[in-house]
């Protein structure tokens, strides 16, 4: 997990040795199969800690499948099978004996559609910490407030904590889902097209939030919106399917370089809109 970028886009912060160790994430020669169908082929990449990595590529190229590999979400699909090594903090997460619940606490996920639980705003955020055994009311209050503040939602909902999580706007619901992830203090946040169901203003708010969070969290985002990848990410991975319909990593590099001077012709064609 070397080759950290010199500076992150958002904070120009230098990475400390601690940052590198905390939440270092990467995959080596990873293949993913759904039954006999290979979705992802021989992917090797290291995710940079405390920065934003965008995964882009045409529909069906394995972006979301690749994202789900990072917190073993594919385990939920019975036919899914994985080969290769996925390392997080120096541990292969697919080793037997890995606590998947603990893993998903450390690697949280935000989905395409905001999916608050049908309960109050407070209970949505407190859900995770409660599951992990925190019962003290004051401690929970503090976690809820802190998480909502980090998610830039506190000011908008502080007076209606008892209201249903489904009663707020789509953009607010998505930030509530981010607060819910933050409440369990993850190290990595995976985002699967988090803005595709949102309007442009709500989208910009989430992007702004991502930039702020990137100083403390490692963020990996799958997006169909290339402009969004260019705007928010420090690193970009471009995936494309081969003739065998399996997704491969075509190019991985600093976002500024990928969008101004990509090395690979296929990347060039895709980001200039000549195919895809």
């Amino acid at each position: 997990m070397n080759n950290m970028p010199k500076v992150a886009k958002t904070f120009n912060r230098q990475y400390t040795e601690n940052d590198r160790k905390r939440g270092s994430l990467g995959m080596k020669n990873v293949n993913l199969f759904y039954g006999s169908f290979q979705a992802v082929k021989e992917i090797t990449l290291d995710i940079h800690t405390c920065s934003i990595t965008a995964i882009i590529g045409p529909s069906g190229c394995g972006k979301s499948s690749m994202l789900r590999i990072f917190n073993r979400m594919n385990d939920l699909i019975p036919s899914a099978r994985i080969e290769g090594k996925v390392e997080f903090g120096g541990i292969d997460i697919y080793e037997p004996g890995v606590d998947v619940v603990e893993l998903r606490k450390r690697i949280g996920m935000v989905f395409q559609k905001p999916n608050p639980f049908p309960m109050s705003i407070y209970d949505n955020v407190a859900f995770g910490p409660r599951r992990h055994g925190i019962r003290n009311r004051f401690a929970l209050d503090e976690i809820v407030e802190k998480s909502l503040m980090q998610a830039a939602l506190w000011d908008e909902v502080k007076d209606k904590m008892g209201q249903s999580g489904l009663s707020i706007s789509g953009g607010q619901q998505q930030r509530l889902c981010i607060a819910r992830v933050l409440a369990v203090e993850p190290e990595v946040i995976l985002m699967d097209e988090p803005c595709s169901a949102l309007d442009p203003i709500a989208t910009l708010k989430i992007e702004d939030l991502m930039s702020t969070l990137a100083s403390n969290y490692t963020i990996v985002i799958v997006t169909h919106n290339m402009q969004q990848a260019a705007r928010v990410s420090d690193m970009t991975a471009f995936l494309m399917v081969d003739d065998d319909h399996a997704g491969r990593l075509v190019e991985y590099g600093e976002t500024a370089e990928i969008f101004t001077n990509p090395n690979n012709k296929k990347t060039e064609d895709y980001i200039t809109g000549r195919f895809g």
Partner: protein
Amino acid sequence: MRKDYERSLKALQDEVLVMGSMVEKSILWSVDALKNRDLELARQIIIGDEAINQKRFDIEEECIELIATQQPMAVDLRIIIAILNIVVDLERIGDHSEGIAKIAIMIGNEPPVKPLIDIPRMAERTVLMLREGLDSFIKRDVTLAKQVCDDDEGVDELYDQVFRELLLIMAENPKTIGRATRLIWAAHNLERSADRITNICERVVFIATGRMEDIGASKY
């Protein structure tokens, strides 16, 4: 895919060529006006420079519109950014030609210091550099672009020659100082134009490789 966009991008590059040929005429005609003491032609060049300036603004506007509406990326973005720089250089070359036309008017019907040989030669070389420079732009030809930059040396050498010769004439006959100095200015305008063309070639290298490079700085 993106047919309209591709057409617009192509049209934009064609417009740069149109502007290039306007500038090319301006260079050649200004030196003709100087050589043949054609004051009417000189006046036309001064008026014509406004059209060159306008062309630059039109192309810049088109670039801005494409950036705003099409979000160009990678090589497309580099082409547009390069064009934004190239049109500035072309416009400045137009100004240098206008400068030569103004010198032609200033000299007016005063007796010639000497028959003009090297200045028209400088103009021919500069125009050749311009043509090849724009050719390299269309073909994204880095080798040709670098070759054109090397050719700048030839223009510099001619400038040295003009300068030395006029210096001698002035030393021998101080009455020529006024006219000879103006001719040195005219030669200097051409020398600067050739330098501007090397800037254009550097942009061609940027389009092709994505790297900003200073290719062989001019002697002046």
